[in-house]
């Protein structure tokens, strides 16, 4: 009974979303595909005898439920369009076709960025004969940061995970240079010792190495796009996290990012550069250009961004400006409180990006 109730409730929610006139046509079509899945599932369950396995129905229902969470965020129209725009531009570097992004604003100190496992959609097609043509990317960010672009930089780290998963970068790095070969990772058993292990212990350390490599790669992608904004944010967000099975320590992560920005030779960075080369990508380098904002932000005005590199660079420039003004406010900022300095710097960053989006859209549609 509960399963059928859930399906009806989810279908009703999707019906409601389908009647919301706010979505892009792509999202509308995607919603209609999900509605067809639930309607088909319900119809098969309601027939006598049921024409579908209850366990299979349960698993599809739960999967669709998770997808809906991100769609409701997109309808709430509180999307940080400016940050999403920057991420979409970054995705262009990786040969990704236009992303169908769904956004959730969540009440937790966490960020997500991942594409739906295609296997789930293949499974639906195999079992129900309904093809989901779209493959959305789900982004989630904390509610309190929805108007704080400078605090949303961890999305670039999550984007790094997306790049890795979509292109198998860490997998290639493991094929090129396995857990038992190295390079050694900070706070992890040395590769020469891993090589001597077997059974469950070996599996455990192999998985630790893989997880840590994934985090390091995502960190490198993020600093490639937003530079010191990422490092500065993490130093305040996770100043002293200890090493765990899934994540390197904060200290180790900060060192790798600093080495990348300073151009210091680091075998872990070299490992990923080789993997990227194997996949036909250019080496990971700075993809951003800092923006000279001291004068214009100093005069409390948004800046003009002339390229995607400037859009990425504004995150680092904005972060440095914010730190500078908090430490040593001057000019028009002299009488403002720290809270106001933070708000206005984030607002000028958001407005600068939004103005570029508006100008681009205006020019692109000027001649029908």
């Amino acid at each position, binding site marked *: 009974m509960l399963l059928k109730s859930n399906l009806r409730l989810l279908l009703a929610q999707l019906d409601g979303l389908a009647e919301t*006139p*706010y979505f892009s046509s792509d999202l509308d079509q995607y919603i209609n595909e999900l509605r067809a899945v639930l309607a088909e599932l319900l119809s098969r369950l309601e027939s006598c005898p049921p024409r579908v396995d209850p366990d299979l129905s349960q698993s599809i229902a739960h999967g669709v439920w998770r997808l809906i969470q991100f769609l409701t965020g997109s309808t*709430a*129209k*509180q*999307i940080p*369009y400016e940050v999403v725009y920057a991420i979409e531009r970054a995705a262009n570097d990786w040969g990704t076709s236009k992303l169908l992004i769904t956004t959730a604003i969540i009440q937790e100190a966490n960020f997500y960025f991942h594409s739906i496992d295609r296997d789930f959609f293949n499974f639906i097609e195999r079992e129900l004969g309904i093809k989901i043509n779209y493959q959305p990317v789900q982004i989630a960010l904390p509610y309190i940061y929805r*108007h704080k672009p400078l605090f949303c930089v961890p999305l670039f780290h999550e984007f790094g995970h997306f790049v890795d998963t979509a292109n198998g970068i860490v997998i290639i790095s493991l094929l090129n240079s396995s857990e038992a070969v190295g390079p050694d990772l900070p706070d992890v058993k040395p590769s020469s010792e891993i090589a001597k292990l077997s059974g469950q212990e070996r599996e455990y350390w192999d998985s630790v190495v893989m997880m840590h490599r994934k985090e390091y790669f995502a960190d490198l992608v993020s600093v490639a796009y937003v530079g010191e904004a990422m490092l500065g944010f993490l130093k305040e967000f996770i100043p002293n996290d200890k090493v765990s099975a899934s994540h390197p320590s904060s200290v180790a992560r900060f060192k790798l990012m600093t080495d990348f920005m300073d151009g210091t030779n680091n075998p872990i960075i070299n490992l990923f550069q080789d993997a990227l080369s194997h996949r036909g990508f250019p080496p990971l380098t700075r993809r951003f250009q800092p923006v000279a904002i001291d*004068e214009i932000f100093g*005069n*409390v*005005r*948004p800046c*003009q961004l002339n390229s995607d590199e400037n859009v990425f660079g504004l995150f680092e420039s904005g972060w440095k400006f914010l730190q500078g003004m908090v430490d040593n406010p001057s000019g*028009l900022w002299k*009488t*403002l409180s720290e809270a*106001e300095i933070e*708000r*206005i710097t984030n*607002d*000028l960053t*958001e*407005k600068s990006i*939004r*103005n570029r989006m*508006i*100008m681009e*859209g*205006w020019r692109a549609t000027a001649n029908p």
Partner: protein
Amino acid sequence: MRLLTRDQIFASLNNKDSESLYLDPLLNDNQVGSISVDLRLGYDFTVSILTRRAAIEPYPADNVKKRGIQSYFQETRRRLGERFILYPHQVVLTTTVEFLSLPRNIYADISIRSSYGRLGIGVTTTMQPGWRGTIPLELFNHGNTPIEMVVGSCVCQASFYEIEQSTDYVGEGAVRKYFGTVRPAVSKADHDDELPHLARMGQIS
């Protein structure tokens, strides 16, 4: 005091000096008219909603739990070209698309364009010399028919007046609650310093 004309407005807009008029983005030079500049409907909205409380109370009585003014409003965002429906008798806070920076000796009067005034929409506000931010618009539909507005359309206009003496908008001691905002901000009437004083007076009389 003098009203700036088209040439004077352009001259100031094109001046890179920090003490000049600044409007960004200015999508079309035709927005600048002979004595005013047309401004566009922004993309962030804060819409008033009904709640269980009978009234918005900027300074509730001692025995009444305060309900923040923010909770009487709901945020929503749009892209340029999308629609926003302005219902009769509903307060909608929004801003212009343009970010405005005013010199210390120029203030701006903002009024609804006559095409929208004729639909029953009212907007009137003054931006003080030294203002920075998008221009707050408190939209109200005085008519009895909902109006579908296109985000980004030119709905209001600014006239600029140069005054003889410069002012210091964010100088020492100045309290500027909305300085540098780029989206609608709900009323901060409850932050007014004099409200406790007036409440004490009310208790005595």
